[in-house]
């Protein structure tokens, strides 16, 4: 259909002109964009499914924030150009498609941030005391952790601790710190054939020790067992 072809051409031209005007300097090759998006989406899934914090991918976030801004700019330009343009309905469609993409992206970024902040708040003391966990935070998240910690500490001091005897005012002794439950069971998908060693003595006797799991299969297992494999990218959590 000729009209549809024109419409698609319209998309191409806009994307090319965006490349020169945006300062992100990223390549706007469709394939690469999809892969980046898939990466963000996967991170979001992992973050939701995992009991602990996932490592922070600064490049991914920055790139998508730039993209978000870029898309908003495109929409603004399209809206301005719309007045008096003969292709009003095509522009409206373009705008609505870009809008949908923006909504989708914004939701992912917001939900990802919310999920991470929730974990940071929940395990604040644990994260503060574990360098490996601190490494997983972005700079802004570290600031957040510090401020949040101060806020909570002040609150407890005001309501409880300052009224107790001096010797009993600590809140960060080992048994008071909440840490993520790494023994939680998770659903996961195997991407690369791996050997997994489980030491669940409570399972049936026939499933003891080391098992080989083929790529493409799914598994329910304790998070701790596959933790390293997830970091290596060989196993992926399902939510």
């Amino acid at each position, binding site marked *: 259909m000729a009209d549809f072809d024109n419409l698609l051409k319209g998309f191409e031209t806009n994307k090319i002109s965006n490349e020169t005007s945006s300062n992100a300097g990223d390549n706007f090759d469709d394939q690469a964009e999809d892969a980046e998006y898939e990466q963000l989406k996967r991170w979001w899934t992992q973050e939701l499914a995992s009991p602990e914090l996932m490592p922070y991918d600064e490049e991914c976030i920055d790139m998508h*924030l730039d993209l*978000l*801004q870029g898309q908003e700019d495109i929409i603004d330009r399209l*809206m301005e150009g719309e007045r008096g343009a003969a292709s009003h309905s095509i522009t409206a469609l373009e705008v*609505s498609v870009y*809008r*949908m993409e923006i*909504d*989708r992206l*914004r*939701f992912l*970024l*917001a*939900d990802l*941030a*919310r999920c991470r*902040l*929730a974990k940071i*708040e929940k395990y604040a003391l644990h994260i503060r005391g574990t360098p490996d966990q601190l490494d997983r935070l972005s700079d*802004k998240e570290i600031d*957040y952790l510090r*401020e*949040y910690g101060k*806020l*909570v500490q002040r*609150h*407890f001091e*005001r*309501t*409880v601790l300052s*009224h*107790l*005897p001096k010797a*009993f005012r600590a*809140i960060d002794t080992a048994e*008071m710190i909440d840490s993520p439950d790494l023994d939680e069971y998770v659903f996961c998908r195997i991407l690369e054939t791996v050997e997994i060693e489980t030491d669940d003595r409570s399972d049936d006797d026939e499933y003891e020790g080391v098992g080989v799991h083929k790529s493409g299969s799914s598994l329910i297992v304790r998070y701790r067992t596959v933790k390293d494999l997830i970091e290596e990218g060989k196993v992926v959590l399902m939510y």
Partner: protein
Amino acid sequence: KTPQTKMEYGNKGKELLIDLKSSEFLSAYNEDLVRATVQECNQHFDEINKMTKAVPADAIPMDCAPFLKLHEAALMRNKRCLLAYHSYRLDKLREMRSETANAVLTPDIRATFGEAELDFYSEYDRLVSNYGAQYGVNLTADLSPPDAEEHYVQVRVVQEGLGKIVTESGNSLVLELGSTHFVRRADVEHLVVQGMLEQLD
């Protein structure tokens, strides 16, 4: 010498925890009970002090040990209950901040929380807003995945005096009480959440 025995070991702390369960959402901040629990802690501490002062510091007789341990345990238990009580309530406050898009608490909810807790809430709200602003994405928006079907919604104005607004997409709407409009969800989401517009399914 028999130390004075208290019958209240950990009782006040227990009452605090029961208080948490006594209402579906949360009961009002029980300042009296908190104070009583703290007082119980301090009484245990006084008992410990009385005992340790009566003997030389490095020669506490063995038969004092169980009493000291008991008082310390009761104190710690109460402390734990106190912290749990406050922590649970903080969790509820944080939950509310993330579930409602506007940070304003309704009066009856405000009445449930103590002064310190309300201060916490406004500081917390500021903290999260700042983070969102720095990050570049508003964390109280986009609470659910965008749904292509819900792109446009029908809403009715249920609050008076809203006047005319210009939406993000450039349309202007006259929000007369009782009028209905078919608009982009994103344009009016914040008004629906605040209760000024009602979404018609």
